[in-house]
């Protein structure tokens, strides 16, 4: 069953059939810091293309975002669902656990967007993050900051080329304190050792869905679910989640 709370996430957002400009976490929000806001992006009108030298210039996606039965459809630019302020409790909980999982269910708008285009981020700008699950053209990318990495969580952990498809996909990143894994549609796509610990994480970063906090790394597509767990889900659990969403 597509129950966002089936495996006890500490933050969970169901974007199906949403409305308004806020998305509350379905998991208990211990310090009221996990509600996401879309600001003015919802139902923002598309801008007419400007005239370039060789013809009209119309960037991919116009306008902002809109609600649909399948989730939040993001076609424009400068769209993000993010916490009003730092997601401090979330960050502290994950640091204490020393492990995590990040779940994203959605349909990428294309296989060319890059940046990486941020899908789920605990970060403040393009160069400082605790974690990001994103898309780099036809690959999913995990940036996970530990005491052994830089403040940007690089080097990237990347799935093989062709992993991203412009259709509903289930993406899960897990970290058990030593190994980071990314699953796509229930299948392990990449695993790499990631030494160190989460002690270097910064509790001042917001939680951001579908963009970077400065709105300069837009991810376009349809978001159905985003969830975060304070443990590394097992292979079987990941497969079960994917089966539930993609059946």
């Amino acid at each position, binding site marked *: 069953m597509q129950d966002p709370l089936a495996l006890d996430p500490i933050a969970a957002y169901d974007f199906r059939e949403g409305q308004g400009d806020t998305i509350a976490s379905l998991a208990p929000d211990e310090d009221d810091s996990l509600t996401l806001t879309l600001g003015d992006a919802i139902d923002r009108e598309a801008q007419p293309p400007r005239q*370039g*030298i*060789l013809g009209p*210039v*119309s960037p*991919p996606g116009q306008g902002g975002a809109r609600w649909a039965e399948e989730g939040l459809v993001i076609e424009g630019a400068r769209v993000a669902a993010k916490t009003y302020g730092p997601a401090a409790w979330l960050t502290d909980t994950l640091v204490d656990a020393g492990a995590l999982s990040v779940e994203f269910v959605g349909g990428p708008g294309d296989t*060319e967007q*890059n*940046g990486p285009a941020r899908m789920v981020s605990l970060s403040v700008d393009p160069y400082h993050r605790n974690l990001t699950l994103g898309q780099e053209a036809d690959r999913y990318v995990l940036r996970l900051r530990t005491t052994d990495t830089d403040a940007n969580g690089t080097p990237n952990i990347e799935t093989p080329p062709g992993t991203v498809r412009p259709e509903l996909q289930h993406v899960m990143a897990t970290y058990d304190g030593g190994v980071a894994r990314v699953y796509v549609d229930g299948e392990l796509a990449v695993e790499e050792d990631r030494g160190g610990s989460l002690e270097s994480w910064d509790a001042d970063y917001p939680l951001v869905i579908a963009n970077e906090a400065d709105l300069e790394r837009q991810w*376009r597509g349809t978001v159905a679910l985003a969830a975060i767990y304070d443990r590394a889900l097992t292979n079987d659990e990941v497969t079960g989640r994917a089966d539930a969403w993609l059946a």
Partner: protein
Amino acid sequence: MPGRHEAAMTRRDFVGRLGAGVLALGAAGSVARGQGSPKVGIAQSEHVLVDGAVRPYTVGEMIDRAVMFVTGAASADAAWSGLFSADEVVGIKPNGLGGYGCSTDPAVITHCIQRLHGVGVRPESILLWEDRPNNLDACSLSVDEPLLGARSHLIQSDLTEPITHGSLTDRFFRPLVNDVDAVLNLPILKAHPICGVTLAMKNHYGSLADPSAQHFDRCNTPMVDLADMPFIRDKTRLVVCDGTRARIQGQAYGEPEYYPNVVMAATDPVAHDTVGYHIIEDERERRGIAPLKGSDLEPRYIAMAAERGLGVADLESIDYEVIDLA
């Protein structure tokens, strides 16, 4: 037929009139569009490529139309006659760094040489050069086989002593400095991983001996000093850019990723590069690629060159026109 002196005066007067708008700009580098604005002709044809190969007849027509726009001449013969004269030594700098398929096309080079012949420039008075054998090869040029009588050279075969201008010190292809009267610059339309774009001004990195030493400040300051070298600044007569295929991000070599199907012509290299930069930037925006402007890759050299008085960098002050050959 006019005598040699009369022909030279006619050409110099003509070029002087073309450049008057530029020279009057001063440091600001901008002027109200209209009389005095530098011209950039952009000839476009959806038929110029067939299975990825350039059609010689079509690209020749595009070159002619673009050059006619820049000069205001009623015919290609008149346009080229107004820019070059029979008694001159003409140097042609193609761009072969991008490899096969992403370098100045042989059909572009051939047509330009034919137009120079039409002006009366002797075949042996036309020379081409590049800095590496592979780069010549990518343009289907060879030091062993003249192209319509024009010889190709590797610059290392004949270099000057070091010449310093501003931040830049390097050795140069000696014939460019000493023998060539007029330069025809044949760049292509490419992004660059260090300086953002590589167009007419960057093309002359293939005219100096140690281009790798001139990449400081992301090439911006040395590129302006290079363009301001008297033997480049004062001898550059025409830029004809092969924009049939282009790259808009990443490395300056490799497969083309954008097919604008254009040839651009200009007498103002700064105006040319301004237009080329905007064409690349427009396509990046169409594809949702982050703009060069405001990033480390912003081609600051263009505005810097305008501030130096080398041309016009304000798109609003450039008289450009897309000429659709359909």
